[in-house]
C-alpha cells in the first residue's frame, strides 16, 4: 500500500511528459476535430439543399437549417489553425466582428447591381469575404433592410450562392483535415508546422485558450461596452437572436476539448469540469435575453458580467494549471504577442 502511494506520488511529481502527448493529440483529433468538421459539412449540406428548394427569407425550414449550420460552425470555430486559416476560410464562414459594416455594404452592392457573381460558384468565391458565410446569410434572412432590398428573385439567388459557398468551404476544410493536416499534427517533423508532439499539443491548447478568450472578450465584451456606454447592438448574431446560443454552443465544444486535453491530468480535469458546469449554468440564466439586449439595464448587465467572469475563471485554470501540467506554458514574452 505504501509502495503504491509512493508510486502515485512519484507519478504526480514527474515532469509533465511522463504523460503521453502523441495520444493526447490523437484523441483530440479523433474525438473532437474530425467529428466536429464532419458534423459541419452535414449541416451545411442540409442548409445548401434546403435553400435550393425554398429560398424565401421567412421560410421556417431555411431558418432552421441556418441555425443548425451556425451551431455546427460554432462547435469548431475555435479551431483556428491549419485548414481553417488557409485562404481566409474561417473569416469566410463568419466575418465578425464587422466593425466597419462591410457585410451589409457588400450585400447591398451585390443586390443593387444584381451582380452575376451570384450565379457562378467560382465568381462568388472571389467577391468580398464580408458577403460570405453565416453573417451574410443572417442579414439576408433577418435584417429588415437587406431582406427587402432589390428583387425577391435576386435575393433568392444570392441566398443560394451564400449557402453553396458555405458548404463548399466546409467541405474543403474537412477534406484538408482528413487528407493531410491531421497527419501533420500526428506525425511531427522538422519541415512540418509541428516539430514535436508537444508543439501540436500547444496548438490545441492555444485554440482552447483563445476560444475562451473570444467568448469573454468579443462575444460578451462587445455588447457590454462600458457601464456608461453599453453596446447591445454590437452583440454577435443579434438579428437572429443567437448571441447567447453562439456562446453556449462554443462553450460546450470547448468543454469537450478541455476534457480531452486534461485526460491525463485528473486534478486539472476535475477543476475544469466544475468551472464549465458553473459557466454553462449561468448561461441558462440568460435564456430570456438571447441577444443580450439586457446589457443596458443593471440586472441584465450583471448576469452577462457574471457569465464573462466565469469564463475568465475557466481561463485561469487553463492558463495557470492545465498549461503547466501539459508543459505548454509559453514564456513571459512568448505569450505577450506585441
Amino acid at each position, binding site marked *: 500500500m505504501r509502495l503504491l502511494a509512493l508510486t502515485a506520488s512519484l507519478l504526480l511529481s514527474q515532469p509533465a511528459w511522463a504523460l503521453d502527448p502523441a495520444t493526447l493529440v490523437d484523441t483530440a483529433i479523433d474525438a473532437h476535430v474530425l467529428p466536429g468538421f464532419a458534423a459541419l459539412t452535414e449541416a451545411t449540406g442540409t442548409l445548401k439543399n434546403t435553400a435550393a428548394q425554398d429560398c424565401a427569407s421567412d421560410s421556417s425550414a431555411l431558418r432552421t437549417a441556418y441555425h443548425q449550420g451556425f451551431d455546427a460552425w460554432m462547435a469548431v470555430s475555435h479551431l483556428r489553425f491549419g485548414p481553417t486559416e488557409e485562404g481566409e476560410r474561417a473569416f469566410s464562414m463568419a466575418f465578425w466582428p464587422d466593425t466597419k459594416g462591410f457585410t451589409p455594404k457588400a450585400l447591398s452592392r451585390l443586390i443593387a447591381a444584381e451582380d452575376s457573381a451570384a450565379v457562378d460558384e467560382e465568381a462568388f468565391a472571389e467577391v468580398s469575404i464580408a458577403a460570405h458565410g453565416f453573417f451574410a446569410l443572417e442579414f439576408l434572412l433577418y435584417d429588415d433592410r437587406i431582406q427587402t432590398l432589390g428583387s425577391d428573385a435576386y435575393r433568392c439567388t444570392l441566398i443560394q450562392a451564400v449557402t453553396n459557398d458555405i458548404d463548399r468551404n466546409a467541405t474543403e476544410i474537412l477534406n484538408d483535415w482528413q487528407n493531410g493536416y491531421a497527419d501533420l499534427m500526428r506525425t511531427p517533423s522538422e519541415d512540418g508546422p509541428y516539430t514535436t508532439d508537444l508543439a501540436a499539443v500547444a496548438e490545441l491548447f492555444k485554440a482552447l485558450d483563445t476560444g475562451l478568450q473570444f467568448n469573454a472578450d468579443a462575444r460578451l465584451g*462587445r455588447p457590454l461596452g462600458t457601464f456608461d456606454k453599453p*453596446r447591445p447592438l454590437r452583440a454577435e448574431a443579434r438579428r437572429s437572436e443567437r448571441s447567447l446560443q453562439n456562446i453556449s454552443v462554443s462553450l460546450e465544444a470547448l468543454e469537450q476539448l478541455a476534457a480531452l486535453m486534461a485526460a491525463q491530468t485528473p486534478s486539472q480535469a476535475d477543476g475544469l469540469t466544475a468551472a464549465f458546469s458553473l459557466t454553462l449554468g449561468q448561461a441558462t440564466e440568460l435564456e430570456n435575453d438571447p441577444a443580450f439586449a439586457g446589457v443596458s439595464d443593471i440586472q441584465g448587465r450583471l448576469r452577462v458580467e457574471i457569465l464573462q467572469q466565469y469564463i475568465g475563471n475557466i481561463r485561469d485554470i487553463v492558463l495557470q494549471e492545465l498549461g503547466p501540467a501539459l508543459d505548454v506554458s509559453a*514564456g*513571459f514574452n512568448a505569450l505577450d504577442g*506585441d
Partner: protein
Amino acid sequence: MVTRRRMLAGLAAASLLPRAGWSSVGTPNYLSAARAPDGTYLLAGLTSIGDITFTIPLPARGHAAAAHPERAEAVAFARRPGTFALVLDCRDGAIINTLTAPEGRHFYGHGTFSTDGNTLFTSENSYEVGEGVIGLWDVTQNYTRIGEFSSGGIGPHDLKLLPDGQTLVVANGGIETHPDMGRSKLNIPVMEPNLSYLSTNGTPLEQVTLPPALHKNSIRHLAVRPDGLVAFAMQWQGPKTEAPPLLGLHRRNATVDLLTATEQAHRAMQGYAGSVAISGDGHFAAITSPRGNLAQVFDIKTGALIVSHKLDDVCGIGPAQTGFFLTTGTGLVGRIRAEKREHPLQWDNHLIAIAPQA
C-alpha cells in the same frame, strides 16, 4: 505592489529634487520593464555589462519605455490597451507625471522624445474609428497634451525619430483592435500594414507597404541607424504553413529590402519577431523570437543570416558597441555568444537604449 498612497508620496517627493542627468542613476545604457518573483512589476536601468543600476516599481505590467535624451526621466507605458503612462524620476521612482490618453484613445505601449527632449510622441489607437494617431505631449509644460495627427495607418506600434530630428518613422501594424474586446484582432483578412514617415508636425512624407502576398505581415518594431537606415521587424498573421521573412530594411525613397534566409530558418522564428535592433557599429541587424527561443543576426550589407542564437524566451534586444545586448523572460542579460548574467527578474519585451550622454 505600489499602493496609491505610495504613488502619491512619490509624487510629493518629486518636487523636492532638482532634475538630474542619467549619470545620477549609475549611467545605465538601457531601460527595461520586468516582473519580480513576488509578482510585482518594475522598471530597471541596465549597463552594457548587465549590471542593474536602479529599479523602480511600476503599478502594472509595462511594455516599452521612452528615455528622456538628457534627464534621468523615463516614460513607462502600460501594455496595450493601456490608457495611462507614467513619467518617472529614475533616481527614486517618483512619479513626475501621469499621462492619460484622451477620451476614445489608448496607448499602444511605445513613445519617443524629440531630440531636445521637449516633446514626447506616443502611438495611440483612436478606437471608435479604428485609426492610428500619434499623440503630442509638451514636456516643458508638465507633459500637457498639445495635439495629435494621423499615424498613416491602423494599429501604429513602435515609432522612432530619424537622425535628422525632424522625421518620425511609424510602424503601422495594420491590425485593428478595440479595447472592449481586449486584444482580439478585428481585421486580419483586410489588414494592410505600412511604414510611414511623417514630419514632426504630422505631414505625411512617405509610405511604404509590403507586396500583396505579405499583407498579413504586421510591421511592429523599429530600429534606426545613424545614417537613417530603418530596420523593421514583423509578426506573421497568416497561415502557419507559410514562413515569410520577418526583418526588413528601408531607406527613404528607396525600395524595401526583406532579409531572407532558408525556409527552415524563417520557420524557426515561429512567425514572430518580438524586437529588433541595429548593432552599435551599424553593420548588423537582429530580430528576436521568444516563441522560437531564437535571436537571428543579419549582415546589413549582404543581407545574409550570419548568426542564429538559441536562448529561451529571448525578446529584449539593443545595440552593443559591436553587436547586441539581449534580455530574456527567464532573467538572463548579456551579449550574443557570451556568458549571460542572471537576475531574479523576468525581463519584458523591450530593451530601450539610452542615448549616450554628451
